[in-house]
């Protein structure tokens, strides 16, 4: 009997094979995942969770109250940013976190007073960080904008905080 091709969509029972590992997708995006976009439809998708750790500096000595600083290179719009910061001289430091809002209940921080201020710790419910550099000189700040590639920090100078503040952040979405 001569060989003949058979149309698998006709005249047979069972499940018809689907190409490309059963996905039926003609192409995908490198680094992405499969995700249901409907009850039965698979498509390429970015991960639901992304994170980026980074570093930036802010020169308090040359800065002034109300300064803003755009932090870019994050690669996505953060839903939350964890921030710790320090000043190499005098050793003040702070840890804090801010969600993707800019209101009172979106942020708070813990601040370690420097040695000139009796090595005490305090908290702040209105800022994502605070650096008490000496006497009554304090730098405070919070995130005022969340954007597609990062976030913008706005600084508040109380009197004259000095030195260069160094920040490590973890942005997540």
């Amino acid at each position, binding site marked *: 009997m001569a060989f003949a091709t058979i149309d698998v969509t006709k005249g047979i029972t069972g499940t018809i094979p689907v190409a490309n590992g059963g996905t039926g997708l003609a192409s995908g995006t490198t680094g992405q995942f499969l995700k249901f976009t409907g009850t039965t439809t698979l498509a390429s998708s970015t991960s639901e969770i992304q994170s980026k750790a980074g*570093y930036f500096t802010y020169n308090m000595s040359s800065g002034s109250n109300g300064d803003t600083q755009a932090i*870019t290179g994050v690669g996505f719009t953060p839903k939350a940013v964890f921030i710790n910061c320090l000043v190499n001289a005098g050793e003040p430091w702070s840890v804090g976190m801010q969600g993707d809002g800019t209101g009172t209940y979106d942020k708070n921080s813990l601040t370690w007073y420097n040695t000139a201020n009796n090595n005490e710790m305090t908290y702040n419910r209105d800022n994502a960080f605070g650096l008490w550099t000496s006497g009554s000189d304090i730098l405070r700040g919070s995130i005022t904008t969340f954007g597609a590639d990062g976030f913008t920090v706005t600084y508040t100078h109380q009197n004259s905080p000095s*030195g260069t503040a160094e920040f490590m952040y973890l942005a997540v979405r």
Partner: protein
Amino acid sequence: MSDIVRVCIKKSNNEILEMQTHDAELGTLKNNLVNNGFNADELEEKKLNPEQLDELLALEVNSSLRRL
């Protein structure tokens, strides 16, 4: 640390005025400083690899940013 950092320096003495990790488009740091009162003509923003950053940190004006 990221393989590439961006710095904005004061051209007159190579002081690092701002530094950020990650390879984003140039211009952010300079704009930050201009918005905060610096003259654009006195600033230079550039991307550095770790070796180039070490050269800048070796300058006394940038000593506070050195790692021990």
